[in-house]
Protein backbone atom coordinates (compact mmCIF):
# COMPACT_ATOMS: atom_id res chain seq x y z
CA UNK A 1 0.00 0.00 0.00
CA UNK A 2 1.14 3.53 -0.64
CA UNK A 3 0.59 5.92 2.24
CA UNK A 4 -2.61 4.77 3.96
CA UNK A 5 -5.46 7.26 4.30
CA UNK A 6 -6.81 6.84 7.83
CA UNK A 7 -9.67 8.46 9.74
CA UNK A 8 -9.21 8.45 13.53
CA UNK A 9 -11.94 8.78 16.15
CA UNK A 10 -11.06 9.93 19.68
CA UNK A 11 -13.68 10.23 22.45
CA UNK A 12 -11.80 9.30 25.64
CA UNK A 13 -12.55 12.49 27.59
CA UNK A 14 -14.31 15.75 26.71
CA UNK A 15 -13.02 16.32 23.17
CA UNK A 16 -14.70 14.68 20.20
CA UNK A 17 -11.71 14.41 17.87
CA UNK A 18 -11.81 13.35 14.23
CA UNK A 19 -8.50 13.30 12.41
CA UNK A 20 -7.55 12.33 8.91
CA UNK A 21 -3.97 11.53 7.91
CA UNK A 22 -2.31 10.17 4.79
CA UNK A 23 0.65 8.25 6.15
CA UNK A 24 2.51 10.88 8.14
CA UNK A 25 0.75 13.84 6.54
CA UNK A 26 -1.95 15.61 8.51
CA UNK A 27 -5.06 16.38 6.45
CA UNK A 28 -7.55 17.31 9.16
CA UNK A 29 -7.58 17.69 12.92
CA UNK A 30 -11.23 18.45 13.73
CA UNK A 31 -12.13 18.88 17.39
CA UNK A 32 -15.50 19.53 19.04
CA UNK A 33 -15.05 20.18 22.74
CA UNK A 34 -17.69 19.96 25.46
CA UNK A 35 -15.42 21.84 27.88
CA UNK A 36 -17.87 24.73 28.28
CA UNK A 37 -20.60 22.34 29.41
CA UNK A 38 -18.34 21.08 32.22
CA UNK A 39 -17.32 24.53 33.43
CA UNK A 40 -20.22 24.95 35.84
CA UNK A 41 -19.37 21.62 37.48
CA UNK A 42 -15.69 22.48 37.94
CA UNK A 43 -14.50 19.34 36.16
CA UNK A 44 -15.34 16.86 33.41
CA UNK A 45 -18.66 15.10 34.08
CA UNK A 46 -18.54 11.70 32.33
CA UNK A 47 -22.24 11.56 31.46
CA UNK A 48 -22.20 15.11 30.09
CA UNK A 49 -19.13 14.25 28.01
CA UNK A 50 -20.72 11.07 26.62
CA UNK A 51 -23.90 12.89 25.64
CA UNK A 52 -21.86 15.56 23.88
CA UNK A 53 -19.82 12.94 21.94
CA UNK A 54 -22.98 11.38 20.53
CA UNK A 55 -24.19 14.78 19.35
CA UNK A 56 -20.85 15.92 17.93
CA UNK A 57 -19.59 12.82 16.15
CA UNK A 58 -21.39 12.93 12.84
CA UNK A 59 -20.91 16.68 12.22
CA UNK A 60 -17.24 16.32 13.19
CA UNK A 61 -16.71 13.44 10.76
CA UNK A 62 -18.36 15.44 7.97
CA UNK A 63 -16.29 18.53 8.78
CA UNK A 64 -13.06 16.52 8.81
CA UNK A 65 -13.82 14.91 5.44
CA UNK A 66 -14.60 18.31 3.95
CA UNK A 67 -11.41 19.83 5.32
CA UNK A 68 -9.30 16.93 4.06
CA UNK A 69 -11.10 16.95 0.69
CA UNK A 70 -11.58 13.20 0.77
CA UNK A 71 -14.64 10.96 0.84
CA UNK A 72 -15.34 8.01 3.12
CA UNK A 73 -14.84 5.68 0.16
CA UNK A 74 -11.28 7.00 -0.27
CA UNK A 75 -10.30 5.82 3.23
CA UNK A 76 -8.00 2.83 3.67
CA UNK A 77 -8.78 2.31 7.36
CA UNK A 78 -10.67 3.57 10.40
CA UNK A 79 -8.95 4.00 13.78
CA UNK A 80 -10.48 4.48 17.21
CA UNK A 81 -9.35 4.97 20.79
CA UNK A 82 -10.17 1.86 22.83
CA UNK A 83 -8.71 3.25 26.07
CA UNK A 84 -7.64 4.44 28.54
CA UNK A 85 -10.25 7.09 29.32
CA UNK A 86 -13.85 7.51 30.49
CA UNK A 87 -15.67 4.26 29.71
CA UNK A 88 -19.02 5.74 28.66
CA UNK A 89 -17.30 8.34 26.50
CA UNK A 90 -14.99 5.79 24.85
CA UNK A 91 -17.95 3.52 24.01
CA UNK A 92 -19.61 6.19 21.85
CA UNK A 93 -16.48 6.34 19.69
CA UNK A 94 -16.15 2.56 19.59
CA UNK A 95 -19.77 2.20 18.45
CA UNK A 96 -19.33 4.81 15.73
CA UNK A 97 -16.03 3.33 14.54
CA UNK A 98 -17.52 -0.14 14.22
CA UNK A 99 -20.57 1.19 12.39
CA UNK A 100 -18.37 3.07 9.96
CA UNK A 101 -15.90 0.23 9.41
CA UNK A 102 -18.62 -2.35 8.75
CA UNK A 103 -20.54 0.09 6.56
CA UNK A 104 -17.53 0.84 4.39
CA UNK A 105 -16.06 -2.66 4.69
CA UNK A 106 -12.71 -1.13 5.72
CA UNK A 107 -10.17 -2.37 8.26
CA UNK A 108 -10.49 -1.05 11.80
CA UNK A 109 -7.62 -0.35 14.21
CA UNK A 110 -8.41 -0.05 17.93
CA UNK A 111 -5.55 1.78 19.60
CA UNK A 112 -4.18 3.16 22.86
CA UNK A 113 -4.88 6.79 23.68
CA UNK A 114 -1.58 7.42 25.48
CA UNK A 115 0.49 5.99 22.65
CA UNK A 116 -1.62 8.17 20.38
CA UNK A 117 -0.23 11.22 22.19
CA UNK A 118 3.25 10.10 21.15
CA UNK A 119 2.10 9.59 17.56
CA UNK A 120 0.92 13.22 17.50
CA UNK A 121 4.55 14.11 16.94
CA UNK A 122 4.88 12.19 13.69
CA UNK A 123 2.12 14.15 11.94
CA UNK A 124 3.43 17.50 13.15
CA UNK A 125 3.83 19.48 9.93
CA UNK A 126 7.37 20.39 8.80
CA UNK A 127 9.16 18.42 11.50
CA UNK A 128 12.04 15.98 11.36
CA UNK A 129 11.06 12.35 12.03
CA UNK A 130 10.89 11.43 15.72
CA UNK A 131 14.00 9.57 16.86
CA UNK A 132 13.78 6.56 19.14
CA UNK A 133 14.21 5.82 21.91
CA UNK A 134 12.60 8.81 23.55
CA UNK A 135 11.19 9.56 26.98
CA UNK A 136 7.63 10.93 26.80
CA UNK A 137 5.85 12.99 29.43
CA UNK A 138 2.09 13.07 28.86
CA UNK A 139 0.19 15.48 31.07
CA UNK A 140 -3.52 16.28 30.92
CA UNK A 141 -6.64 16.52 33.05
CA UNK A 142 -7.05 12.76 32.72
CA UNK A 143 -3.52 11.38 32.85
CA UNK A 144 0.03 12.10 33.97
CA UNK A 145 2.38 9.47 32.60
CA UNK A 146 6.07 9.06 31.98
CA UNK A 147 6.94 6.60 29.21
CA UNK A 148 10.04 5.10 27.66
CA UNK A 149 9.29 4.74 23.96
CA UNK A 150 11.67 2.41 22.16
CA UNK A 151 9.39 1.91 19.18
CA UNK A 152 6.04 3.61 18.62
CA UNK A 153 4.26 0.55 17.28
CA UNK A 154 5.86 -2.22 19.30
CA UNK A 155 7.71 -1.16 22.43
CA UNK A 156 6.38 1.40 24.88
CA UNK A 157 7.19 1.03 28.58
CA UNK A 158 5.35 2.77 31.40
CA UNK A 159 7.94 4.26 33.76
CA UNK A 160 5.49 5.97 36.07
CA UNK A 161 2.15 7.69 36.39
CA UNK A 162 0.12 9.63 38.91
CA UNK A 163 -0.99 7.65 41.93
CA UNK A 164 -3.86 10.07 42.64
CA UNK A 165 -4.88 13.21 40.72
CA UNK A 166 -3.76 14.00 37.18
CA UNK A 167 -1.77 17.24 36.95
CA UNK A 168 -4.60 18.92 35.04
CA UNK A 169 -7.03 17.99 37.80
CA UNK A 170 -4.70 19.57 40.36
CA UNK A 171 -4.80 22.81 38.38
CA UNK A 172 -8.61 22.66 38.31
CA UNK A 173 -8.90 21.99 42.04
CA UNK A 174 -6.43 24.68 43.06
CA UNK A 175 -8.17 27.15 40.76
CA UNK A 176 -11.37 26.46 42.69
CA UNK A 177 -9.56 27.05 45.99
CA UNK A 178 -8.57 30.45 44.63
CA UNK A 179 -12.11 31.11 43.35
CA UNK A 180 -10.93 30.97 39.74
CA UNK A 181 -13.05 29.42 36.98
CA UNK A 182 -12.66 26.13 35.13
CA UNK A 183 -10.49 25.01 33.38
CA UNK A 184 -7.84 25.81 35.95
CA UNK A 185 -4.67 25.61 33.85
CA UNK A 186 -4.98 28.87 31.92
CA UNK A 187 -6.58 30.60 34.94
CA UNK A 188 -3.67 29.67 37.23
CA UNK A 189 -1.29 30.82 34.51
CA UNK A 190 -3.00 34.19 34.32
CA UNK A 191 -3.20 34.55 38.10
CA UNK A 192 0.48 33.62 38.47
CA UNK A 193 1.65 36.49 36.28
CA UNK A 194 3.71 38.78 38.48
CA UNK A 195 3.66 36.27 41.35
CA UNK A 196 6.81 34.96 43.02
CA UNK A 197 7.24 31.23 42.34
CA UNK A 198 9.55 31.00 45.38
CA UNK A 199 7.17 32.83 47.76
CA UNK A 200 5.79 29.60 49.22
CA UNK A 201 7.63 26.30 49.25
CA UNK A 202 4.80 23.87 48.45
CA UNK A 203 5.62 20.15 48.68
CA UNK A 204 6.96 18.18 45.71
CA UNK A 205 5.00 14.91 45.72
CA UNK A 206 6.92 11.61 45.79
CA UNK A 207 10.26 13.40 45.70
CA UNK A 208 11.62 12.55 49.15
CA UNK A 209 14.41 9.97 49.28
CA UNK A 210 12.15 7.43 51.04
CA UNK A 211 9.53 7.78 48.25
CA UNK A 212 12.04 7.64 45.43
CA UNK A 213 12.89 3.98 45.91
CA UNK A 214 9.40 2.83 45.01
CA UNK A 215 8.03 5.83 43.12
CA UNK A 216 10.99 7.28 41.27
CA UNK A 217 8.90 8.09 38.19
CA UNK A 218 5.45 8.29 39.77
CA UNK A 219 3.57 11.49 40.52
CA UNK A 220 1.23 12.59 43.30
CA UNK A 221 -0.58 15.91 43.34
CA UNK A 222 -3.21 15.41 46.01
CA UNK A 223 -0.86 16.35 48.89
CA UNK A 224 0.13 19.49 47.03
CA UNK A 225 -3.52 20.44 46.55
CA UNK A 226 -4.14 19.92 50.28
CA UNK A 227 -1.10 22.03 51.17
CA UNK A 228 -2.46 24.88 49.04
CA UNK A 229 -5.88 24.50 50.69
CA UNK A 230 -4.30 24.67 54.18
CA UNK A 231 -2.31 27.73 53.21
CA UNK A 232 -5.39 29.52 51.87
CA UNK A 233 -7.41 28.56 54.95
CA UNK A 234 -4.73 29.89 57.27
CA UNK A 235 -4.84 33.25 55.47
CA UNK A 236 -8.61 33.32 55.86
CA UNK A 237 -8.45 32.36 59.55
CA UNK A 238 -5.93 35.06 60.26
CA UNK A 239 -7.84 37.59 58.21
CA UNK A 240 -4.94 38.11 55.80
CA UNK A 241 -5.69 38.79 52.14
CA UNK A 242 -4.73 35.79 49.98
CA UNK A 243 -1.71 36.65 47.81
CA UNK A 244 -3.29 34.94 44.81
CA UNK A 245 -0.42 35.65 42.41
CA UNK A 246 2.17 34.19 44.78
CA UNK A 247 0.05 31.15 45.64
CA UNK A 248 -0.67 30.46 41.96
CA UNK A 249 2.96 30.94 40.92
CA UNK A 250 4.29 28.82 43.79
CA UNK A 251 1.77 26.05 43.17
CA UNK A 252 2.50 26.01 39.46
CA UNK A 253 6.22 25.92 40.19
CA UNK A 254 5.76 22.87 42.42
CA UNK A 255 3.85 21.01 39.67
CA UNK A 256 6.28 22.01 36.95
CA UNK A 257 9.31 21.21 39.09
CA UNK A 258 8.16 17.65 39.82
CA UNK A 259 7.16 16.97 36.21
CA UNK A 260 10.39 18.25 34.72
CA UNK A 261 12.66 16.78 37.40
CA UNK A 262 11.23 13.29 37.03
CA UNK A 263 11.17 13.44 33.23
CA UNK A 264 14.81 14.51 33.06
CA UNK A 265 15.75 11.90 35.67
CA UNK A 266 14.25 9.28 33.38
CA UNK A 267 16.26 10.67 30.44
CA UNK A 268 19.46 10.49 32.51
CA UNK A 269 18.78 7.04 34.02
CA UNK A 270 17.90 5.49 30.67
CA UNK A 271 20.60 7.34 28.76
CA UNK A 272 17.99 8.82 26.42
CA UNK A 273 18.76 12.42 25.43
CA UNK A 274 15.28 13.04 24.03
CA UNK A 275 12.07 14.14 25.72
CA UNK A 276 8.67 14.38 24.03
CA UNK A 277 5.89 16.36 25.67
CA UNK A 278 2.18 15.75 25.11
CA UNK A 279 -1.25 16.27 26.65
CA UNK A 280 -3.34 19.38 27.23
CA UNK A 281 -1.34 20.65 30.22
CA UNK A 282 1.59 21.23 27.85
CA UNK A 283 -0.35 24.39 26.96
CA UNK A 284 1.08 25.73 30.22
CA UNK A 285 3.78 28.15 29.17
CA UNK A 286 5.80 27.83 32.37
CA UNK A 287 5.95 24.05 31.96
CA UNK A 288 7.22 24.35 28.40
CA UNK A 289 9.81 26.96 29.39
CA UNK A 290 11.09 24.99 32.37
CA UNK A 291 11.31 21.81 30.33
CA UNK A 292 13.19 23.53 27.50
CA UNK A 293 15.60 25.40 29.83
CA UNK A 294 16.44 22.55 32.13
CA UNK A 295 16.66 20.00 29.32
CA UNK A 296 19.06 22.23 27.40
CA UNK A 297 21.26 22.42 30.49
CA UNK A 298 21.52 18.61 30.55
CA UNK A 299 21.83 18.09 26.80
CA UNK A 300 18.34 16.71 26.30
CA UNK A 301 16.40 17.67 23.16
CA UNK A 302 12.74 18.49 23.81
CA UNK A 303 10.00 18.05 21.24
CA UNK A 304 6.61 19.68 21.68
CA UNK A 305 3.95 19.16 19.01
CA UNK A 306 1.71 22.16 18.30
CA UNK A 307 -0.93 22.57 20.99
CA UNK A 308 -3.74 21.47 18.67
CA UNK A 309 -1.97 18.09 18.51
CA UNK A 310 -1.07 18.03 22.24
CA UNK A 311 -4.66 18.18 23.48
CA UNK A 312 -6.77 15.09 22.83
CA UNK A 313 -7.44 14.72 19.11
CA UNK A 314 -8.32 12.21 16.42
CA UNK A 315 -5.31 12.97 14.23
CA UNK A 316 -2.96 11.30 16.70
CA UNK A 317 -5.18 8.20 16.70
CA UNK A 318 -5.18 8.11 12.90
CA UNK A 319 -1.42 8.70 12.89
CA UNK A 320 -0.77 5.79 15.23
CA UNK A 321 -2.92 3.51 13.09
CA UNK A 322 -1.14 4.67 9.93
CA UNK A 323 2.19 3.70 11.51
CA UNK A 324 0.76 0.36 12.64
CA UNK A 325 -0.34 -0.29 9.05
CA UNK A 326 3.06 0.75 7.70
CA UNK A 327 4.73 -1.69 10.09
CA UNK A 328 2.57 -4.53 8.75
CA UNK A 329 0.14 -4.92 11.60
CA UNK A 330 -3.18 -6.60 10.90
CA UNK A 331 -6.43 -4.77 11.72
CA UNK A 332 -8.33 -5.34 14.95
CA UNK A 333 -11.23 -7.76 15.07
CA UNK A 334 -14.71 -6.32 15.66
CA UNK A 335 -14.77 -7.88 19.14
CA UNK A 336 -13.18 -5.23 21.33
CA UNK A 337 -14.72 -2.80 23.74
CA UNK A 338 -13.72 0.26 25.69
CA UNK A 339 -11.03 -0.32 28.30
CA UNK A 340 -10.86 2.60 30.73
CA UNK A 341 -7.57 1.35 32.22
CA UNK A 342 -5.89 0.00 29.06
CA UNK A 343 -2.18 -0.41 29.85
CA UNK A 344 0.24 1.53 27.69
CA UNK A 345 1.95 -1.68 26.61
CA UNK A 346 -1.18 -2.55 24.61
CA UNK A 347 -0.55 -0.25 21.69
CA UNK A 348 -3.17 -1.95 19.55
CA UNK A 349 -6.15 -3.91 20.87
CA UNK A 350 -7.61 -7.16 19.46
CA UNK A 351 -5.26 -7.57 16.49
CA UNK A 352 -6.59 -10.27 14.15
CA UNK A 353 -4.87 -13.63 14.14
CA UNK A 354 -3.00 -14.42 10.95
CA UNK A 355 -5.12 -16.28 8.38
CA UNK A 356 -4.68 -20.02 8.63
CA UNK A 357 -2.24 -21.23 5.99
CA UNK A 358 -3.67 -22.80 2.84
Amino acid at each position, binding site marked *: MTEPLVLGIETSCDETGIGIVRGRTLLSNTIASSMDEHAR*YGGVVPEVA*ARAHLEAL*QPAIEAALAEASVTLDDLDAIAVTSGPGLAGALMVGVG*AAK*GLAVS*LDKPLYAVNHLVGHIAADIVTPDSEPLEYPTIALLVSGGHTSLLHVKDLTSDVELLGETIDDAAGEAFDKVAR*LLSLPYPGGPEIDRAAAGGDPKAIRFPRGLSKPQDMAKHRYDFSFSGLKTAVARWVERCETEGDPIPVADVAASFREAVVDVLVTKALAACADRGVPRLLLGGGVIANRRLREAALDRAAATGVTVRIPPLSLCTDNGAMIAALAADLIASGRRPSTLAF*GADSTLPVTEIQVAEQQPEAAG
Partner: protein
Amino acid sequence: MILAVDTSLGSAVALIDADGRARADASSPDPLGHAEVIGTLLHRALAEAGEGAVTHVIAGMGPGPFTGLRIGIATARAFALGRGAQVVPVPSHFAAALAVIETDAPESPFAIVTDARRREVAISLFDGVDADGIPNLLEPTVLVPRADADERLRGIHAIEVSTLDAAALARVGLRAANAGRDLAGAEPLYLRQPDVSVPGAPKRVS
Protein backbone atom coordinates in the same frame (compact mmCIF):
# COMPACT_ATOMS: atom_id res chain seq x y z
CA MET B 1 -33.22 -2.92 2.64
CA ILE B 2 -33.89 -1.33 5.98
CA LEU B 3 -31.42 -1.83 8.83
CA ALA B 4 -32.41 -1.42 12.49
CA VAL B 5 -30.00 -1.15 15.42
CA ASP B 6 -31.02 -1.00 19.07
CA THR B 7 -28.99 -1.22 22.28
CA SER B 8 -31.61 0.04 24.73
CA LEU B 9 -31.83 -3.39 26.39
CA GLY B 10 -29.60 -6.07 24.87
CA SER B 11 -27.95 -5.54 21.50
CA ALA B 12 -30.22 -6.11 18.50
CA VAL B 13 -29.66 -5.76 14.75
CA ALA B 14 -32.06 -6.71 11.95
CA LEU B 15 -32.60 -6.13 8.24
CA ILE B 16 -35.92 -6.16 6.42
CA ASP B 17 -36.96 -5.64 2.80
CA ALA B 18 -38.75 -2.52 1.61
CA ASP B 19 -41.95 -4.61 1.71
CA GLY B 20 -41.38 -5.46 5.38
CA ARG B 21 -40.17 -9.04 4.93
CA ALA B 22 -37.45 -10.13 7.38
CA ARG B 23 -34.01 -10.59 5.82
CA ALA B 24 -31.71 -11.07 8.80
CA ASP B 25 -31.63 -10.90 12.57
CA ALA B 26 -28.70 -10.93 14.98
CA SER B 27 -28.97 -10.14 18.62
CA SER B 28 -27.54 -10.66 22.09
CA PRO B 29 -29.76 -10.53 25.17
CA ASP B 30 -26.84 -9.44 27.38
CA PRO B 31 -27.76 -6.10 29.03
CA LEU B 32 -24.03 -5.27 29.08
CA GLY B 33 -21.24 -5.55 26.55
CA HIS B 34 -22.96 -3.60 23.78
CA ALA B 35 -19.72 -2.02 22.57
CA GLU B 36 -18.04 -5.42 22.35
CA VAL B 37 -20.76 -7.18 20.32
CA ILE B 38 -22.38 -4.52 18.14
CA GLY B 39 -19.88 -4.69 15.27
CA THR B 40 -20.01 -8.47 15.06
CA LEU B 41 -23.83 -8.51 15.14
CA LEU B 42 -23.97 -5.88 12.40
CA HIS B 43 -21.48 -7.77 10.27
CA ARG B 44 -23.33 -11.05 10.75
CA ALA B 45 -26.75 -9.57 9.96
CA LEU B 46 -25.47 -7.94 6.75
CA ALA B 47 -23.85 -11.20 5.61
CA GLU B 48 -27.08 -13.09 6.30
CA ALA B 49 -29.19 -10.49 4.45
CA GLY B 50 -27.12 -10.81 1.28
CA GLU B 51 -27.15 -8.40 -1.65
CA GLY B 52 -29.10 -5.16 -1.62
CA ALA B 53 -28.63 -1.49 -0.82
CA VAL B 54 -29.46 -0.23 2.66
CA THR B 55 -31.70 2.80 2.16
CA HIS B 56 -32.72 3.52 5.77
CA VAL B 57 -31.07 2.93 9.14
CA ILE B 58 -33.53 2.83 12.03
CA ALA B 59 -31.97 3.85 15.33
CA GLY B 60 -33.62 2.73 18.56
CA MET B 61 -33.60 5.88 20.72
CA GLY B 62 -34.46 4.29 24.07
CA PRO B 63 -35.39 4.72 26.81
CA GLY B 64 -32.64 2.54 28.24
CA PRO B 65 -29.50 2.70 30.37
CA PHE B 66 -27.60 5.60 28.83
CA THR B 67 -24.18 4.09 28.36
CA GLY B 68 -25.46 1.12 26.38
CA LEU B 69 -28.20 3.03 24.58
CA ARG B 70 -25.77 5.49 23.02
CA ILE B 71 -23.62 2.77 21.46
CA GLY B 72 -26.33 1.56 19.10
CA ILE B 73 -27.26 5.09 18.10
CA ALA B 74 -23.62 5.94 17.37
CA THR B 75 -23.27 2.72 15.36
CA ALA B 76 -26.48 3.36 13.40
CA ARG B 77 -25.54 6.93 12.51
CA ALA B 78 -22.00 6.06 11.45
CA PHE B 79 -23.23 3.13 9.38
CA ALA B 80 -25.78 5.37 7.65
CA LEU B 81 -23.11 7.98 6.98
CA GLY B 82 -20.93 5.34 5.31
CA ARG B 83 -23.74 4.15 3.03
CA GLY B 84 -25.44 7.49 2.40
CA ALA B 85 -28.59 6.05 4.00
CA GLN B 86 -31.28 7.98 5.85
CA VAL B 87 -31.30 7.74 9.67
CA VAL B 88 -34.76 7.26 11.16
CA PRO B 89 -34.88 7.65 14.95
CA VAL B 90 -37.61 5.57 16.61
CA PRO B 91 -38.40 5.23 20.33
CA SER B 92 -37.53 1.65 21.26
CA HIS B 93 -40.85 0.99 23.01
CA PHE B 94 -42.62 1.30 19.63
CA ALA B 95 -40.87 -1.86 18.51
CA ALA B 96 -41.93 -3.76 21.61
CA ALA B 97 -45.50 -2.49 21.14
CA LEU B 98 -45.64 -3.52 17.46
CA ALA B 99 -44.37 -6.99 18.34
CA VAL B 100 -47.15 -7.34 20.94
CA ILE B 101 -49.80 -6.05 18.53
CA GLU B 102 -48.66 -8.42 15.75
CA THR B 103 -48.68 -11.50 17.97
CA ASP B 104 -51.51 -10.87 20.45
CA ALA B 105 -53.66 -8.16 18.81
CA PRO B 106 -54.81 -6.82 22.19
CA GLU B 107 -58.19 -5.06 21.99
CA SER B 108 -57.58 -2.63 24.83
CA PRO B 109 -54.71 -0.30 25.76
CA PHE B 110 -51.57 -1.95 27.11
CA ALA B 111 -48.31 -0.79 28.60
CA ILE B 112 -44.74 -1.57 27.55
CA VAL B 113 -42.51 -1.59 30.63
CA THR B 114 -38.71 -1.70 30.66
CA ASP B 115 -36.24 -1.60 33.52
CA ALA B 116 -34.65 1.85 33.90
CA ARG B 117 -32.19 0.92 36.69
CA ARG B 118 -32.15 2.70 40.06
CA ARG B 119 -35.40 0.91 41.00
CA GLU B 120 -37.30 2.72 38.27
CA VAL B 121 -39.17 1.52 35.19
CA ALA B 122 -40.00 3.26 31.93
CA ILE B 123 -43.66 2.97 30.93
CA SER B 124 -45.33 3.69 27.58
CA LEU B 125 -49.08 3.23 27.01
CA PHE B 126 -50.21 2.06 23.56
CA ASP B 127 -53.55 1.31 21.94
CA GLY B 128 -53.50 -0.51 18.61
CA VAL B 129 -51.98 1.01 15.48
CA ASP B 130 -52.84 4.16 13.59
CA ALA B 131 -53.60 4.61 9.88
CA ASP B 132 -49.88 4.32 9.05
CA GLY B 133 -49.61 1.03 10.93
CA ILE B 134 -47.59 2.65 13.71
CA PRO B 135 -48.47 1.81 17.33
CA ASN B 136 -50.63 4.49 18.92
CA LEU B 137 -48.75 6.06 21.83
CA LEU B 138 -51.40 7.37 24.25
CA GLU B 139 -49.20 9.58 26.41
CA PRO B 140 -45.47 10.41 26.63
CA THR B 141 -43.20 7.73 28.08
CA VAL B 142 -42.57 8.20 31.81
CA LEU B 143 -40.09 6.99 34.41
CA VAL B 144 -41.69 5.88 37.67
CA PRO B 145 -40.38 4.07 40.73
CA ARG B 146 -40.95 0.36 40.27
CA ALA B 147 -42.88 0.30 43.54
CA ASP B 148 -45.38 2.82 42.14
CA ALA B 149 -45.81 1.17 38.74
CA ASP B 150 -49.01 -0.75 39.55
CA GLU B 151 -50.71 2.34 40.88
CA ARG B 152 -49.66 4.29 37.82
CA LEU B 153 -50.94 1.60 35.43
CA ARG B 154 -54.46 1.64 36.96
CA GLY B 155 -55.09 -1.95 35.97
CA ILE B 156 -53.85 -1.56 32.39
CA HIS B 157 -52.24 -4.76 31.15
CA ALA B 158 -48.47 -4.33 31.44
CA ILE B 159 -45.92 -6.21 29.38
CA GLU B 160 -42.40 -6.01 30.73
CA VAL B 161 -39.77 -6.72 28.09
CA SER B 162 -36.05 -7.34 28.57
CA THR B 163 -35.01 -7.77 24.93
CA LEU B 164 -35.99 -5.86 21.83
CA ASP B 165 -37.10 -7.16 18.44
CA ALA B 166 -35.01 -5.19 15.95
CA ALA B 167 -37.08 -6.43 12.99
CA ALA B 168 -40.17 -4.87 14.61
CA LEU B 169 -38.15 -1.68 15.11
CA ALA B 170 -37.28 -1.78 11.41
CA ARG B 171 -40.96 -2.14 10.47
CA VAL B 172 -41.98 0.81 12.64
CA GLY B 173 -39.16 2.89 11.17
CA LEU B 174 -40.05 1.95 7.60
CA ARG B 175 -43.68 2.91 8.17
CA ALA B 176 -42.65 6.22 9.74
CA ALA B 177 -40.30 6.97 6.84
CA ASN B 178 -42.97 6.10 4.27
CA ALA B 179 -45.46 8.34 6.05
CA GLY B 180 -42.91 11.14 6.41
CA ARG B 181 -43.34 11.17 10.18
CA ASP B 182 -40.80 11.82 12.94
CA LEU B 183 -41.36 9.57 15.94
CA ALA B 184 -38.29 10.83 17.84
CA GLY B 185 -35.81 13.68 17.73
CA ALA B 186 -32.04 13.46 17.46
CA GLU B 187 -31.58 13.24 21.23
CA PRO B 188 -31.95 9.82 22.89
CA LEU B 189 -34.90 9.41 25.27
CA TYR B 190 -32.77 9.96 28.36
CA LEU B 191 -35.76 10.88 30.58
CA ARG B 192 -33.22 11.75 33.26
CA GLN B 193 -30.76 14.59 33.76
CA PRO B 194 -27.04 13.80 34.09
CA ASP B 195 -26.35 12.84 37.67
CA VAL B 196 -24.29 15.84 38.75
CA SER B 197 -24.53 18.82 41.01
CA VAL B 198 -22.92 22.23 40.82
CA PRO B 199 -20.15 22.27 43.43
CA GLY B 200 -20.40 24.51 46.47
CA ALA B 201 -17.49 26.06 48.33
CA PRO B 202 -14.41 23.82 48.67
CA LYS B 203 -14.43 21.61 51.78
CA ARG B 204 -12.08 22.69 54.55
CA VAL B 205 -9.02 20.51 55.01
CA SER B 206 -7.79 21.82 58.34
